[in-house]
Structure formats: C-alpha cells, structure tokens
C-alpha cells in the first residue's frame, strides 16, 4: 500500500485521543479559583494587619509568589499542575513556578551559564510581550490625551 499523507492525517485524527477539554476546563476553573480564593484570604489578612488596599495587593502578590516558589521547590506545584493545567499556570503562582523551576533545573550548568542564562527560558516570552504590550498601551493612552496617575 502506498501511504498517502492526506489520508494518513485523517487516520491520525481518528486514532489520536484528544485532551478531555471540558474536564480540563472544569479542573482549571476549580484549581485556579481555589488559588484566587487563597489570594483573597491573604489579601484580607494583610488588610486586617493595617495595610491599605494597594499595599495589601502588593503584599498579597509577594506572598503568593513565595508560596508558588515554595511549592515548586518541594516538587508539589508540578503535581498540582498536572491536574490543574491552566488553573495553576495563569495565577501569579504559575509565574513563580516558571521562574523557579528553571533555576532549580539548570543549577547543574553553573550560576552564570545555567541559572543566569536559563532563568527566563519559560517566563521570558511572557515578560517580552507583557512589557511590550504595556508600552504600546501607555503610548496609546498618551497620544489619545489620556493619562493621569495609573
């Protein structure tokens, strides 16, 4: 039998199981929601200790990044993420995981060419396009005569 690329692609789609989209979405919603609930609790805690709303938000981000980093170091974050998917990637804890995991992994190549060079191997694109987008947004706001304290 002569193999035909087009026919093979059709067969492939039939034979390759897809990710369970609805189940993954539901789990992402529940896990992501749970992380946000914890974040809300942390925010309430800082406010109850006398921080203003804006300061409490910054303190909450710091706390959540710390927790994400800690769970990554304990190899618990990846176990959670296996089920949570986007639920653990999207919150700020996921950003911590994306920075800390390469730092742990590439330690064996040294502090400069390992940790230093590879630290942003996953988070790099988020920073590049996140910062680029914020610059564009700021420029647009400036040109359109908006502005004020942001």
């Amino acid at each position: 039998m002569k193999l035909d690329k087009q026919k093979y692609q059709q067969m492939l789609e039939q034979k390759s199981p897809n990710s369970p989209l609805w189940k993954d979405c539901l789990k992402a919603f529940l896990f992501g929601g749970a992380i946000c609930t914890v974040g809300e609790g942390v925010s309430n805690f800082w406010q109850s200790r006398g921080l203003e709303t804006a300061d409490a938000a910054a303190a909450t981000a710091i706390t959540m990044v710390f927790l994400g980093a800690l769970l990554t170091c304990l190899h618990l974050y990846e176990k959670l993420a296996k089920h949570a998917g986007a639920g653990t990637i999207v919150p700020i804890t996921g950003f911590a995981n994306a920075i800390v995991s390469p730092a742990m992994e590439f330690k064996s190549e040294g502090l400069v060419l390992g940790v230093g060079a590879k630290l942003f191997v996953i988070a790099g694109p988020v920073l590049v396009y996140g910062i680029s987008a914020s610059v564009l947004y700021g420029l647009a706001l400036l040109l359109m005569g908006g502005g004020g304290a942001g």
Partner: protein
Amino acid sequence: MIRRIGKRTLQFAERPFLLSHAAAVGKKEGDGPLGAQFDFVTEDDRMGQKSWELAESELQKTAIDLAVKKAGLQKSDLDVILAGDLLNQCIGSFLASVGSDVPYLGQYGACSTMAQGLALGGCLVEGGAARRLLAAASSHFCSAERQYRFPLAYGGQRTPTAQWTATAAGAAVLSAADPRGGSSGIRVTHALFGRMVEMGVKDANNMGAAMAPAAYDTLSTLLSDLGAQPADFDCIVTGDLGHVGADILLTLLREDKIDLSPVYSDCGSLLFGDEQDAHAGGSGCGCSAAVLCGPLLRDMEGGRLRRLVFAGTGAMMSPTSVQQGQPIAGICHAVVIERSGA
C-alpha cells in the same frame, strides 16, 4: 557473509551469536509490569551523580558492565562498542564508555538506536570487522525532559498522545563464535536498515503517529523479503510506538491484509502499567533497549520465544527542527533474532 535478499533485507550466513544481554532501569520502570525481569533497578534515579546526564551514563555503564560480565568477558575482549542515547552529541554514551579503552562508534537513531546498533553490529561481526562487540542504548526521563521539554519542576500538562521517556538502558554482546562452544544459542539472522518515512506529522507530543508509517514500511518489507507471514514468528515487537502508534501500525498493515495482532507487542506499551500515568506509553532509546535486553531475551533463553523480530522505531526530530516547523520523520530498523538448538 552478508547476502541481500528481496528488496532490502540482509541475511547473515554465519548468524552472529547474541552472547549476553543486560538491562538497567529506573525506579518507575522497576515498579512497572516488567520490573522483575530487569537485571538492575535503581532506587535512586540520580544514580549518586551530580547531574542527570551523568546519571544516564552511569545507568548505561551499569548495563554494559553487566552484559560483559554475563558473557564471561572483560571489556578488553570487545573489538568495538556501538552505543547511543537521546542527549545532544550522545554524551550519555560516550561518558559511559570513555574509560573503557575499547574502540567506540556513537549511534543516533532516536528510539531505534538499539535496533540500529544490533543491525550494524551484526554486519560488523558477520563481515569480520569485529570478533565480539557490544551494542547499547540508554535514555533518562530527567535528562530528556530538560533537553526536549521543560524543567522537571515546571507545572505543565501532557496530552493523552504524549509518551514517557524511560529511564532505562540495555546492552547486548554480539560474537562471531560462542566461546562456550556449540552452535546452539541466541543468534541474529537478519537485519533491515529502515528508511525515513515522513507523513507530515508535526506534533512532538504524538511521536507514535510519526513513527508508525516507518514501522509499517520496514515490517512489510521484511515480511515480503523473507516470504514470511507474521505467524512464522513468535513475537514481532516494535519499540516504541506506544498505544497510539501501535494501533495505527496494525491498521496500516490490516489494509494490506496482514494481521500482525496475534504476535505483536510494543516495548513502549509493555514497559508501564495503565496506572503509572505514562499516557501513550514509554519511549526513549532505553525503552526498547531494556525491554529487549531484559524480558524479551530472557524469554528467548527460557525457550518461551524462539523467533523474534525486534523493530526499533525512532522519531527524527529535535526541539530546533520542531520549533522551525519541520515535520517529524519516522525510522525503523529491524533485526531477526532466533534461538537455535535445545
């Protein structure tokens, strides 16, 4: 003497002896359904080393040392070592044999490396270039992950078609003569070097699908060159298409009215149990190497298998080629192994 028969099959008139074999695996592989049939199962996947790459080479070295010892040989008795792995520039293999003082030929055939080493080794022994040689291959989940995918502690999700790189190594000694005398034993009778088959698969998480057409090409050529039916063999094993690729291979052959299923197995499907969360099954050079050099060759020694086709399948790709949008080609090398005599 090597004789070409049919389109591409090489027949070894002297039938090199497969003197000994050994498999060394990681903890997860040891916990799997084949766990008891490996020569060495490590409790510590790091193998006491300071990096995963060194851990892999140590695992491969363990398999090599065991195979040489089981053959009753010293490493200095080997005329050449043919070894390969998945790491860049095959560092797992050269680090494993750098102190051996044996001529060394690095192999790369992705997950088909063990079959490639045995096929090439068969030719070298049959052609008189080596009296005794060793073929080995290894892979390590942790060293492969950091090279091909993400850091271990990164929280990602795998697709159902993704395969799990085995932490495993296998080694086998081929010899022109059996020093223990006699003509009985396990012998390599045929080899077939596969060609690359590319069917437009670009998903690095579905390598079984990328490799299945190559397995189809090699196995159907082999059967037709030998004028054989699947039933002429006790076992035809691919390594490692995984569940998805194995299903595709059987379907492709069925369209040619060849029913492989009664004698067919896949090393990737055999290595892990369903509850071990390996998704579509095992992969990596070490997967087929360890399943062959552990359970399968033990079954041949025990007489439970007498005639085996070992068809190693590899996905020809790198992270760079995938990122540049290149399709993944499959390759499949096969060797026929027989148990002769009592």
